[in-house]
């Protein structure tokens, strides 16, 4: 500890210089870590819980003290933040930025072995395949497989490799933590969580097994499942296979005659999700996709699925409620002209031939998605999922608030709820002692007001 303090002290002048530079130049490089005392600052501890004037003290990257009256030890960097408000750093519940695409083509040579490893979705003895419909009889060679679409063992946290600019953009948008969700595929891997600190600060990963991702995409060409309708059957079969593996596993451990697990890596990877030991994160944007998540969850006995995207969630609130889902709502709103149901307006109205162009009210309605879901009692976590930059996250939350979400609900949906759904509540989401020192500091008293610029961002006690 002494050595750490010493290091912190040594870093002090640099840190201070950087803080000054940061104020003038938002693109300033990351500082080394120091211990800070943010004084005379308005503290939003958690949504609805505010200390009007107090101090936040950090030590070794964590929150050491919070309160109206905090003793400030010697050697910490004092920052007088009168006229400012400090919030817990925002959590973007789902992004694919910095992750490889599950539809990337792998070298053909790797296909055969890797495809076997991935179990080809575990059709196993039922066979099928492109060749003779007799399992294991060979047949013509399969065309190149775009493999990562089915790689349930892949970990997004492990593969997270953002550029410094991408991380910087997140921080400029107030985001200090991100949920990592692959974009595309069928079982592209496991959802993770990471910090948006500079890469020079060390490993960014917070969690590697936040959930098992399931998506309705396929670009596998001639390989089963080659279509969206095939993918649905494939997903159902994969969950059944994992549940079967779990039965065998239990029977084997219990010494039941005849029970021995298959030990297929794909099935084993899905076992926790298939038995509700891990949550399933379904990527579903449209009305019909979300309904489908409900149907699959019900059939497979999946409790509380996470629905990532949920852009048309307001159209299927009952389906979301019935399945006990948490909505990870993307703030990449669909065009109001393209949502399900526009065609219903196009015909039979007697007024127009094609759906009328979206009005301001139509657009506001799409923006009000998160508000409508919150009002219906569905847990909502906000996300930039589908977007190309974290830079606009705070602006999009502002638009959500303007569309009817309360400021406190929005803050909850960008801090507490995403922390819970990602399983990182112990580390992030509020300004409480012991959690990581992840903060956003704005001038004024409202994080989401356009007129209040973000002054500072702290991640794990480092000032950016």
């Amino acid at each position, binding site marked *: 500890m002494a050595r750490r303090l010493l290091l912190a002290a040594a870093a002090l002048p640099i840190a201070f210089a950087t803080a000054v530079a940061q104020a003038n130049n938002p693109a300033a490089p990351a500082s080394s870590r120091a211990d800070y005392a943010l004084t005379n600052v308005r503290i939003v501890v958690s949504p609805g819980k505010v200390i009007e004037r107090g101090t936040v003290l950090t030590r070794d990257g964590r929150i050491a003290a919070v309160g109206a009256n905090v003793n400030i030890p010697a050697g910490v960097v004092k920052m007088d933040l009168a006229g400012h408000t400090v919030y817990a750093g925002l959590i973007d519940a789902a992004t694919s930025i910095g992750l490889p695409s599950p539809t990337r083509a792998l070298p053909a040579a790797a296909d055969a072995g890797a495809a076997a490893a991935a179990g080809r979705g575990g059709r*196993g*003895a*039922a066979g*099928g395949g*492109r060749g*003779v*419909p007799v399992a294991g009889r060979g*047949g*013509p060679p399969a*065309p190149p497989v775009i493999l990562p679409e089915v790689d349930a063992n892949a970990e997004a946290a492990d593969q997270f490799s953002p550029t410094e600019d991408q991380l910087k953009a997140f921080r400029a948008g107030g985001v200090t933590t991100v949920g990592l969700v692959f974009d595309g595929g069928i079982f592209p891997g496991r959802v993770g969580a990471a910090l948006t600190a500079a890469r020079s600060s060390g490993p960014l990963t917070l969690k590697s097994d936040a959930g098992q991702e399931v998506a*309705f995409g396929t670009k596998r060409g*001639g*390989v*089963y*499942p*080659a*279509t*969206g*309708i*095939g993918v*649905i*059957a494939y997903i*159902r*079969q994969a969950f*059944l296979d994992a549940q*079967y593996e779990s*039965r*065998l596993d239990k*029977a084997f451990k*219990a010494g*039941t005659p*005849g029970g021995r697990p298959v030990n297929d890596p794909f099935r084993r990877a899905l076992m926790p999700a298939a038995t509700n030991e891990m949550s399933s994160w379904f990527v579903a944007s449209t*009305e*019909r996709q979300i*309904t489908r998540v409900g149907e699959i969850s019900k059939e497979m006995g999946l409790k509380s699925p996470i629905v990532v995207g949920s852009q048309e969630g307001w*159209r*299927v609130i009952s389906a979301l409620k019935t399945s006990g889902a948490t909505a990870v709502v993307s703030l990449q709103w669909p065009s109001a002209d393209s949502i*399900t*149901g*526009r*065609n*219903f*307006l*196009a*015909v*039979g*109205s*007697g007024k*127009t*031939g*094609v759906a009328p162009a979206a009005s301001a*009210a*139509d657009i*506001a*309605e799409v923006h*009000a998605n998160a*508000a*409508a879901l919150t*009002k219906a009692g569905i847990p909502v976590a906000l996300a930039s999922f589908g977007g190309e930059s974290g830079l606009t996250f705070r602006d999009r939350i502002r638009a959500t608030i303007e569309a*009817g979400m309360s400021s406190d609900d929005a803050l909850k949906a960008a801090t507490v709820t995403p922390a819970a759904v990602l399983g990182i509540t112990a580390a992030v989401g509020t300004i409480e002692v012991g959690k990581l020192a992840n903060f956003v500091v704005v001038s004024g008293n409202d994080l989401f007001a356009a007129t209040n610029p973000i002054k500072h961002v702290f991640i794990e006690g480092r000032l950016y």
Partner: protein
Amino acid sequence: MRSFIRLCALAAAISAPVVLAAQDLAIKNATIITITRGDISNGTIVVRNGKITAVGGADVAIPAGVKTIDGTGKFVMPGIIDAHSHAALENGINEGSESVTPEVQVQLRNDDPVIYRALAGGVTAALLLHGSANTIGGQARIIKMRWGQPADSMYFKGAFRIVKFALGENVTQASSTTPVDEKRFPMSRMGVEFTVRYWFQKAKEYDQEWNEYRAAVKTSPNTIMPRRDLRLEALCDILHGDLKVHSHSYRADEILMLIRVAEENGFKVHTFQHVLEGYKVADEIAKHGAMASTFADMWGYKVEAWDATSYNMALMSQRGIVVSVNSDSDERIRRLYQEAGVGVRYGNMPVNEALKMVTLNPAKQIGVDKMVGSLEPGKDGDIAIFSAHPFAPDAMVEYTIIDGKVYFDRNQASTLRKIAGDSKGPGGTR
């Protein structure tokens, strides 16, 4: 907050179907084609809560307050049913990567404008089938054309579960330019027959495994439940009669082949689709107990469609087969009543026997003839109102009614031409 409520109201407006509110409706002074009980001139029909309560002459009382359509000069018939369509589907029509995929089910695109176009042709229900790329393809969706409703509100409750089979050139990929060594099995008619036999053998073994488990678990509760295989489960459902086979077919030889393989393996071909050479083997089809759904006058577009004839409908009907005429097309779906008329011109089918081919007979083929297909008390209020007899060249659909709700009203639909130009419907091989 007020603005939020307004937004919710707008949301409801987008979701809400463009239909009249009540499910009560009456039509009077019309010629009623009941299909099962002859025609009634100057007739009256009453629908309450979505069900037909009375069909008769001018003396039938219309309860006070029930919205009434004056049918003077108009013809009223049961809503038309399309027994073979790929309209309004999404995410693929063929899971063609493998030749046996009964675990797959097609997905409804509930806001496809083709549904509205079909309504404009008096269609109230349709069998939406998987494509014909596979020997044993995917499961179907059967819908009522409840335009404006969420997808799961359009499914026809009580209908059969149906799976698509296919034979001949589509399955063997005869017209594909793919090199032979990259083609999918089966590549020949021999291979198609083997594929059906092989998979039903597997299904029977699977069925046996589960039967043994069910017997064993009664005495040994620790018996491990076997692996569930959705593909083999679906095949077992066919063996048990819970999943009905609708098989794409053209030539007489392949029809006979499937009948033989089905009878040897203990399942039934419920309906032959297309069945263009059905007239050659009508007695064999009738003996097997299968029905037939065919085209009125489509032929010659590939080798196996060479021997087709418009007399097919009449000839098969005369041999006791329940025959329907289908669209298999997003365009013909809106004029199926004209397709049925071909049976009158070619084969002298009685007019109402011909109309059965787009009403009661397809209803039997999708398992809903107790609910729809004719105008009788107790059946669903699914009705098409024409400006003239449906076989008259200038007849147009004026109203299409489902469960007593008006889903299409020509007076309000001034825009069909624009809509037709706006959507080509879903893509993919049919």
